[in-house]
């Protein structure tokens, strides 16, 4: 798993995840995700390059997201592929974290 961050307009932090969010992938990004969540107020989690997502990977997304939201921040998920989105929806995570495929809409949701 690769992880990179980018500061966007409006105080939005974009976290781009790349690779397979299986048990090993989740373990590889957990610490960095928690550090990012400790500072971010508006978090855009970019899943476009995530090829796989399992329940441990879900946890690595939801726990940091929850940390941001518990401080009054906002989190959106961006551009998951069809199968990854299927996992997000099957597990009901989309009721906690909105999924956007259009960057402008994702940015608007964070304002």
């Amino acid at each position, binding site marked *: 798993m690769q992880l990179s961050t980018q500061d966007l307009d409006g105080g939005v932090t974009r976290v781009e995840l790349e690779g397979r969010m299986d048990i*090993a992938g989740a373990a590889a990004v957990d610490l960095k995700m928690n550090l990012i969540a400790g500072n971010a107020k508006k978090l855009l989690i970019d899943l476009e390059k995530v090829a*796989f997502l*399992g*329940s*441990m990977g879900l*946890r690595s997304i*939801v*726990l940091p997201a929850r940390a941001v939201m518990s401080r009054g921040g906002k989190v959106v998920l961006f551009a998951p592929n069809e199968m990854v989105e299927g996992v997000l929806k*099957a597990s009901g995570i989309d009721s*906690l974290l909105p999924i956007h495929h259009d960057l402008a809409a994702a940015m608007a949701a964070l304002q």
Partner: protein
Amino acid sequence: MPAEDAAKPAPRLILKSQLDDMASLWPWVEALVAEYSIPADTAFAVHLCLEEAVSNVIRHGYRSQPNHTLTIDFAQPEAHHVAFTIEDQAPPFDPLAPSLIEEPPAPTPEDYLRPGGRGILLLRKFAGSLAYERLAGGNRLTIGFVLPG
């Protein structure tokens, strides 16, 4: 030919009862996917179901105690059907048990505090078929997938 046979992925994967041993799961699945021309969406579902089922055996069946093993056997009983059979020597655990089959309510963040809290749900949603069998000293779960075409 012998050279080609040597390159074929093994039909059986043996894993230790520790989560970090699961790193060998995807390379094995990936090799099978290439060998049997399994489409990408099915490969995703296979990896997802195996990860959830195996991690469940390790965490709940073996209670994360090392020094146990489990096996996964691959089979292609028909041209458009592949199956993965997971066998362990853990106490009884039926992931298809009626008490687990009811659709859970909408998740709360706390659900995600439990490792793999949604694992069984994902297993059920993404498997083509699931069959559980209690063995004399363990469990057998067979996960089937229908290939398109």
